[in-house]
């Protein structure tokens, strides 16, 4: 897993002709097609060329040591309990010019707004289903659709308070949304730590560039969480709910709680009495108003969802339905970031906002449709096929990289259960110069901006988390597969 919330997804973009990896086929973030340095990378390139190799090597070693000592690590499932790994950090930043970011930001705002309206709609009047824009059974029979949320009014009508939208660039550099992570997206702590590390290692670079700051993210998050407190609560108690120290993203949970100055709680620290949530403190019970929960719906309340969950809080759903506590994100957001719903997001934007989508979706074939299925079966070697409800990169076929046997295997799977799969063309993911053993070489990357919503306001800090696939030719940016991260710079004008 590495990261919760679809951190695995960029691997579908494997441009899989691994044998003849010619970087010229990919959009390079730093260099243009003629091998010249793009304007927004010019100063960095000058600096890089004028800085001795030894100094850079020393700084890279320093970064490794610092990350280890601070313990910015993630736990790896299936390995010895308590074992932690570092996520490799690359010192070449991913730079985004101001104008590109503004366009991207405006597209993200539009998209997340529509997704929140969609969530409100399907748990209330279901206008979009009545209008026939999305087949009702696609939503209502979806395992992520939570009937317990029907008619529940959440503060400000916001469901996805925190969205981690995975964006990639392909072709001539246009942005595509790969996935909208609306459940418990993670990775923001790495975004913040990467920036801190870059400023510590190379302060001179920040004197030469006007890099938009990101360090206020925890304040922005706290502001949003406080804004969605239950009605009548003027000074809400906010907590972060974690599954515990062995969760892969535990570092981030502690980090955010500390940065916001709120308690980090586990399920066993909370209890519900008369539909009110309390935490157990050394001075007795204390009421809790807003819970930034980093636990999946299924584990939230053993009385309502999985009865075997030891991570949750019995009775919390009732307290939530009664409006006595706010959960961020809301219960039941998973239906909106499901792969079977993803193809409809552009339609949602048109339906709710009356606007044309500003960001591209990756064209998606829904195998439950006969025509789509026929096309997919005929083009398997070129396509990426994914399980609709799959996660973590399991149950996936990357056509161009697959063996004949694998393709045949998927053909049988598709024929047996077409509605369980979607397919997308293999995109040529953009790349960026990155330090690797041989020196500096282009590696593929993606971007996850963190989009925060409350009421009518949608905000984000400039940039997001850039993940990079460190293995040559690979587009697997997943942290547990050796993916790394880069600091992301949005340049101010």
């Amino acid at each position, binding site marked *: 897993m590495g990261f919760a919330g679809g951190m695995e997804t960029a691997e579908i973009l494997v441009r899989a002709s691994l044998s003849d990896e010619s970087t010229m086929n990919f959009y390079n973030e730093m260099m243009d097609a003629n091998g010249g340095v793009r304007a927004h990378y010019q100063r960095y390139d000058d600096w890089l060329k004028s800085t001795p190799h030894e100094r850079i090597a020393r700084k890279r070693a320093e970064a490794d040591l610092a990350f*280890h*000592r*601070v*313990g910015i690590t993630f736990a790896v499932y299936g390995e010895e309990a*308590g074992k932690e790994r570092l996520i490799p950090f690359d010192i070449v930043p991913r730079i985004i010019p101001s104008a590109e970011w503004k366009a991207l930001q405006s597209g993200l705002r539009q998209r997340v707004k529509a997704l929140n309206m969609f969530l409100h709609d399907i748990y209330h009047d279901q206008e979009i289903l009545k209008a026939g824009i999305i087949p009702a059974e696609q939503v209502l029979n979806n395992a992520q659709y939570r009937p317990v949320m029907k008619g529940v009014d959440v503060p400000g009508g916001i469901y996805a308070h925190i969205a981690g939208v995975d964006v990639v660039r392909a072709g001539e550099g246009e942005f595509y949304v790969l996935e909208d992570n609306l459940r418990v997206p993670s990775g923001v702590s790495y975004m913040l730590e990467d920036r801190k590390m870059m400023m510590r290692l190379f302060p001179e670079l920040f004197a030469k560039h006007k890099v938009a700051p990101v360090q206020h993210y925890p304040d922005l998050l706290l502001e949003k969480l406080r804004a969605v407190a239950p009605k009548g609560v003027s000074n809400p108690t906010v907590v972060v709910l974690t599954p515990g*120290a062995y969760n892969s993203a535990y570092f981030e949970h*502690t*980090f955010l*709680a*500390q940065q916001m100055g709120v*308690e*980090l*709680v*586990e399920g*066993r*620290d909370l*209890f519900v*009495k*008369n539909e*009110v949530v*309390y*935490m*157990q*403190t*050394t*001075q*007795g*019970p204390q009421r809790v108003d807003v819970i930034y929960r980093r636990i999946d719906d299924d584990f939230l309340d053993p009385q309502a969802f999985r009865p075997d969950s030891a991570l949750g809080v019995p009775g919390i759903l009732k307290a939530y339905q009664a409006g006595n506590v706010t959960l961020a994100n809301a219960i039941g957001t998973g239906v909106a970031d499901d792969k079977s719903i993803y193809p409809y997001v552009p339609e949602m934007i048109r339906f709710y906002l009356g606007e044309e989508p500003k960001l591209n979706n990756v064209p998606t074939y829904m195998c439950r449709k006969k025509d789509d299925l026929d096309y997919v079966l005929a083009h398997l070697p070129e396509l990426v096929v994914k399980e609709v409800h799959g996660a973590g990169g399991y149950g996936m076929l990357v056509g161009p990289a697959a063996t004949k046997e694998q393709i045949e295997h998927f053909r049988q799977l598709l024929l047996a259960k077409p509605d369980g799969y979607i397919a997308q063309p293999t995109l040529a993911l953009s790349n960026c110069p990155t330090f690797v053993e041989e020196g500096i070489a282009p590696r593929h990357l993606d971007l996850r901006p963190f989009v925060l919503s409350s009421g009518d306001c949608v905000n984000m800090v400039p940039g997001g988390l850039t993940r990079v696939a460190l293995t040559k030719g690979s587009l697997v940016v997943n942290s547990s597969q050796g993916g790394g991260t880069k600091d992301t710079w949005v340049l101010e004008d």
Partner: protein
Amino acid sequence: MLSRTADHLFWMSRYIERAENLARLLDVTWQMSMVPQSEDAANQNWHAIITLNSLDEAFAAKYPAVNAENVLRFMVSDADNYSSIYSCLRLARENAHAVRGTITTEMWETLNFTWLEARDKSFEQILNAGIGEFFEWVKMRSSLSRGTTLGTLLQDESYHFIRLGTLLERADNTARILDVKYHVLRPHGDEGATDFYQWGALLRSVSAFEVYRKAYRDVITPERVAELLILRNDMPRSLHFCMNGVVKNLDLIANRHSGETQRQAGLLHAQLHYARVEDILAQGLHEWLTDFMDRIYILGDGISKDFLVPLAEAA
């Protein structure tokens, strides 16, 4: 503060303090073993450490004989032994990990780095580098941890729980060191050079050698050693000093359930405050220390029930 957070802080500080005191105890035993003595006597000293920690069974299950190397291996590096220095440093770090958002970055880094270093040292490496070096290192890491706590942490409830854990653990551990060493030393009683070195080593193990000189300006006698380590009000590792802090910190965190625990702590403190070493020795030091350790245990239990793992969820 969350009860669970307080629990982790309390145990984090207990484990690092325990690691330090264990290093002190092993160090003094190691040093005493260098004074000429029969093999039996030497092994008896090592065996006392096992017995003191109620580890006879666990030890016997893994090691064929009681001797310096086996006991050191068991108490320093054995991951299966939850009382070893290795395990204490691991548990201190695990507890810190669970509350790393509550403690300061420096505190976390100190405990995390201590554990990472300890984890990478094999027993053979420790022996080769000189085991005394290792004990010094453990003491320094514990000091560093205490220092970063004092130097960086807001002195709110979290600080009080940390201090409470440190002092309660230290009271217990000093009593144990005194008990096991006094026991071994006392019967010989002769005023030879051997005794001087043995008492000197014991005092050094609790960093009290210079303190003794300063306080008494006289030869080392067992009575004064006992007095210094039990009753001296201003000696940071004495039982009296520890109980001063326990009472003070308990008062600062008091809640509506903690009255009985505070009373017990106050009583124990008063008894130390007004005690005379002659009376304690007349009663029998071993008996007195055993009773003291029992009462420390009861206090820890009371703190746990009152603050750390509240049973009733009465809102």
